[in-house]
């Protein structure tokens, strides 16, 4: 029990952020029209590419060659996720904009 309380105490800020972000995510998405499901999925797909920050941190502090290589691969994969995700989403939405005229 003490361990759980200790864990909560040590990480209380992060736990607050998690709970509030969960609620925010639900709230932001709830009333989206079906037409936008695909672009929205693609856009949020790009946002979780934020994992690349972790890859940059790992690579930035890599000491062995193996860590450097793995980090290199991780950064490439993360960048693919970010850049590919945003560009694909933009291409989809470009279509929507054109038909508005």
């Amino acid at each position, binding site marked *: 029990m003490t361990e759980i309380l200790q*864990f909560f105490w*040590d*990480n209380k800020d*992060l736990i607050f*952020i998690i709970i509030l*972000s*969960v609620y*925010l*995510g*639900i709230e932001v*998405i*709830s009333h*989206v029209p*079906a*037409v*936008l*499901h*695909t*672009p*929205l*999925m693609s856009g949020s*797909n*790009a*946002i*979780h*590419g*934020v*994992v*690349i*920050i*972790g890859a*940059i941190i790992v*690579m*930035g*502090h890599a000491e062995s060659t193996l860590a450097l290589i*793995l*980090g*290199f691969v991780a*950064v*490439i*994969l*993360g*960048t*693919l*996720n*970010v*850049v*590919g995700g*945003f*560009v*694909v989403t933009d*291409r*989809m*939405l*470009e*279509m*929507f904009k*054109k*038909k*508005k005229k």
Partner: protein
Amino acid sequence: MNEIFTIQNSILEISYLGASLLFILGLKKLSHPLTARAGNLWAAAGMTAAIVFTILFHQMDGKGIGNIPWILAALAIGSFIGWYASVKVKMTAMPQMVSIFNGMGGACAALISLMEFPHLQDELAAAGHTHMLTGPAIAILLGLMIGSVSFAGSMIAFLKLDGRLGDIKTPALRIVNLSFLVVLLVALVVIMYMHPVSGNNWPIYLFALAALIYGVTFVMPIGGADMPVVISLLNSFTGVAAAMGGFLYNNQAMLTGGILVGSAGTILTILMTRAMNRSLLNVIIGAFGVASGSGSESEDQTVKEISLSDAAVLLSYSQKVYIVPGYGLAVAQAQHLCHDLDNLLTDKGVEVKYAIHPVAGRMPGHMNVLLAEADVPYEKLVEMEDANNEMSNTDVVIVIGANDVVNPAAEEDPSSPIYGMPIIRAQDARNVIVMKRSMAAGYAAIPNNLFYHPKNRMLFGDAKATLQKLVAEIKSL
């Protein structure tokens, strides 16, 4: 890790706050048609800021980011490949592309965990801990597990969408599936209570392998038609994996970004299943697997065909025509021809509109994107409910490459697997022409009574070739 106040740390945290705000606002804007494109750019701006400020100002144990030339090289390679692939991909293959990018994110999260675990184990061993159970260890293992499942699952989803992999539906796989999940969770607990020994890393490699295999067996039995839902689900998985990284590094940008996608992705997944009148559990377990016997009585019914010239005449002398596009249209890349047909008929004074089912195609909104690509004006795309209200005064409905979304069994036959799914009521129009390659069942593998309906006539052949001939026929009238 960057708890001490320095100017750099403070600037970095402010940039993360800005990035998180941009993610939230971007997502909000993405859910409205008019602001969606701007929303995407906002989120991209937040991402760029987070990346640039991390490289410039991130400090760990008093050291800044090193290996910067290598990092920049990796960023450049990833950007180029990602940009090139996205620009070159055909609109019809978008779902596959999203699936691949999602897998890359999952793999990235898994790799981070694979590299951080040895570090953590060394630290804990040096500090004399008797077990691994700590916050960082939980974050690493969950990140590794979820990231690996997301990566492997996305690759399978990609192969299925691309038509390179069929469905394997055996009850045995379901049991294998469930036991793998149990094994994974047990392994997670075992590793937690493992005595930290420096250099003893094989358990985590085995764990990663098991998670990869689970990702494969998890997606394998799910039908190809449900892949969009699966991708959306895996998308939210990757979000959670990214958030684990945020937990590990005490990094607020990763945390908010990841959790936001995790929760928004879950809601999106539920919305998508709701549009198909299914539950998430139903999709994962796969109720579409067994074809119902309800359509068997229709086998002795006859199907009427229509000739090209009859179809041309019928269309030319109609007042109002509705086109119901489906995935077959997308596969045949016939959206431009569809628009040609539309123009031709419009010139003859026929009112042409498109009835868009919310789940037509391989993803919700897929049809809108494809038709917009072919310059079909927005006002001509009519949503299902409104189209259904107009059906009774429509002369001809042309169904091009669609099947399940016009299947009357969804309304009439309670034993049908798609019973309750809203459909476009093509049978209410005066005439129906179904353009189809063959009499094969649709993606949900259930027979369609519309084909045998007295008002319906079939126009067999590849959508593109048939449309081409039909357009030529109408021109020559």
